[in-house]
């Protein structure tokens, strides 16, 4: 975990008259949340290891507007979206990868009608592609045979039909994937979506993240793999709520790949 991360901003690349292979959209949570920042670093290291020429927008990146839109504030969403589209189009961006299924969904599905047309990929898809193309290999067998369960993010799975890419990435680790009873189309939400992340849950008799992490812990897996920083936060809290944090780890698939390769 010592390698220096090589990173360029779009402004730097553009000054040299160069274009990246892909823009890495870091997202707010990936930029500011301490737990999520580790995932961002892990993914950047994977990109470095695969020699992917990528760039970030740095201070030119702004919230996609997703939480505002889900919370009903269409004005704010469209202001954010139109601003971002101006920046992205200004740099002539055509391909975007992000570790956030919410940014992924919004940019892939909701930006086109506002003039932003990009090929948008979720990092699980991107890593899977790098593995398939042989640009990265999983070395060592640090996770061989380990029981891992995978929690589908709603905005990646049900929302956009991507159930396989993250599972293929996990299989590349030679792990033993144990599915929860509610998985894929039937996966239970972590509780953060629809702007819930920014508010107290409405009154009820249980927290959604507790319900879900009980199910994850119930599989007996020692690693709960996630592919969304919001799910990561929610399930980490849920595992702690059960006092299981010493036995069960919640990790993003990017972290698992980086760890296996000692990046």
């Amino acid at each position, binding site marked *: 975990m010592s390698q220096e991360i090589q990173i360029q*901003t779009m402004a730097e690349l553009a000054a040299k008259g160069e274009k990246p292979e892909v823009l890495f959209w870091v997202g707010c949570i990936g930029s500011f949340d301490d737990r999520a920042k580790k995932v961002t670093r892990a993914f950047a290291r994977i990109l470095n290891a695969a020699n992917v020429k990528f760039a*970030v927008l*740095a201070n030119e990146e702004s919230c996609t507007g997703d939480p505002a839109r889900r919370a009903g504030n269409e004005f704010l969403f469209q202001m954010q979206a139109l601003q971002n589209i101006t920046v992205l189009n200004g740099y002539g961006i055509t391909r975007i990868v992000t570790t956030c299924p919410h940014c992924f969904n919004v940019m892939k599905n909701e930006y086109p009608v506002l003039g932003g047309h990009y090929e948008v990929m979720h990092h699980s898809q991107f890593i899977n592609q790098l593995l398939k193309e042989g640009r990265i290999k999983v070395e060592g067998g640090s996770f061989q045979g380990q029981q891992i369960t995978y929690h589908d993010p*709603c905005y990646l799975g049900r929302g956009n039909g991507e159930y396989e890419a993250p599972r293929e990435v996990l299989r590349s680790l030679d792990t033993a994937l144990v599915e929860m009873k509610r998985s894929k189309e*039937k996966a239970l939400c972590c509780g953060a979506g629809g702007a819930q992340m920014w508010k107290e849950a409405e009154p009820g008799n249980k927290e959604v993240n507790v319900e879900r992490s009980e199910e994850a812990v119930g599989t007996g897996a020692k690693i709960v793999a996630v592919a969304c920083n919001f799910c990561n936060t929610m399930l980490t809290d849920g595992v702690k709520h059960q006092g299981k944090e010493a036995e069960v780890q919640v990790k993003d698939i990017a972290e698992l790949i980086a760890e296996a390769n000692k990046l």
Partner: protein
Amino acid sequence: MNIGAVIFILVLAAAVWWFTRNVRRIRRNILLGREEVINDRKAERWATMARVALGQSKMVVRPVAGILHILVYAGFVIINIEVLEIIIDGIFGTHRVFSFLGGFYSFLIGSFEVLAILTWLACAIFLIRRFILRIPRFWSREMTEWPRTDAGLILTFEILLMSAFLLMNAADHTLQGMGAEHYVKAGAFPVSAVLASWLGMAGMEPSTLIGIERFCWWFHIVGILGFLNYLPYSKHFHILLAFPNVWYSKLRPKTQMDHMPRITAEVQSMMDPSIPPPAPPAEPANGFPPEHFGAKDVFDLSWKSLMDAYTCTECGRCTSVCPANITGKLLSPRKIVMDTRDRLEEVGKVLDKNNGKWVDDGKDLFSRITDEELWACTTCNACTQACPVNIDPVHIILDLRRYLVMEESKPRQELNAMFTTIENNGAAWAYGPDKRMDWVKE
């Protein structure tokens, strides 16, 4: 023409007239919704309809209910072929007019009988599941007295119709064996023959049997026509709307929200003063309320959401997979859809009373749906995935949230804070753009 035929024609005409009237009323109500053009990807729409509505693909996700439902559904669709014969016999005073089909006719009647008994059994099991085993999704909060009665009536009705059909055949079959006048030897009676021997019909007087046969014939057909006219007042209307509702369902990614072009025009003019602000929407005629940002009442929802509302059969699969509902929150996607339908019916009655003009009754969707329900949704789309007829409760919830926030400025307080940070920092958390690269440092 005999008196029976005259009565039959009158009953049939009245039933068709009343049903058509109600279907037109429902159609009018659905079209009160906001315009949304849905006519893309036609081949995919037909395929989806064939798979989901005709093929019941999402029903069998829960095998017990799914397979029983397929029996009732197949029974219903196929036995209706029999209704054609009954109608012709009724009008022309014939008896078993299709019997000239010979072996094929026997095959038809035989398979109707098998389906009838399977439907009978499936309905009985449904009644047991609902009222004796009391499966929780049939007893949750929104399943008030009428929805529960409605379900019970439908199942009881179907059992009675199937019983009449089988009893009619049992008597007919026995009469055929006796060589009674009028009762031509035709058909195969694998179920009713057994029923006839159980009831000892062979020992009955021909006149009694004719009485049973005639009574059941009339009960069956008048029952079917009555049931037809019950549909528009019942959740059972889904048997008709399931098909168009699936055809028109959302093919885009589930998490893709509806675009609001009017807001784009406003935002563009805010960002670039040389673009004039958009003209306000035209004042609607006939006293209808002006267009809102988001949905305050049924007029503001897409017509597709209103069709969703009339299509719902209250099975509760949506609610049983809803993370908010599972964890004891107030939100139930089924209730949102039922509330929308009930409000729409209420609006329709106001229009009926005022010759199609809208007179504000001081109520709207928020008279039924609380903020607490709306803010519990995680937009996870488990409900839309679970719905066997592709109803989209999330669409309604998000349209209502849009109204709450953009017109009433009534989000949850913490969400206001999130809006402000996005406005000020371009981030959903209170960090400035200069902190965007801090992640690189350990």
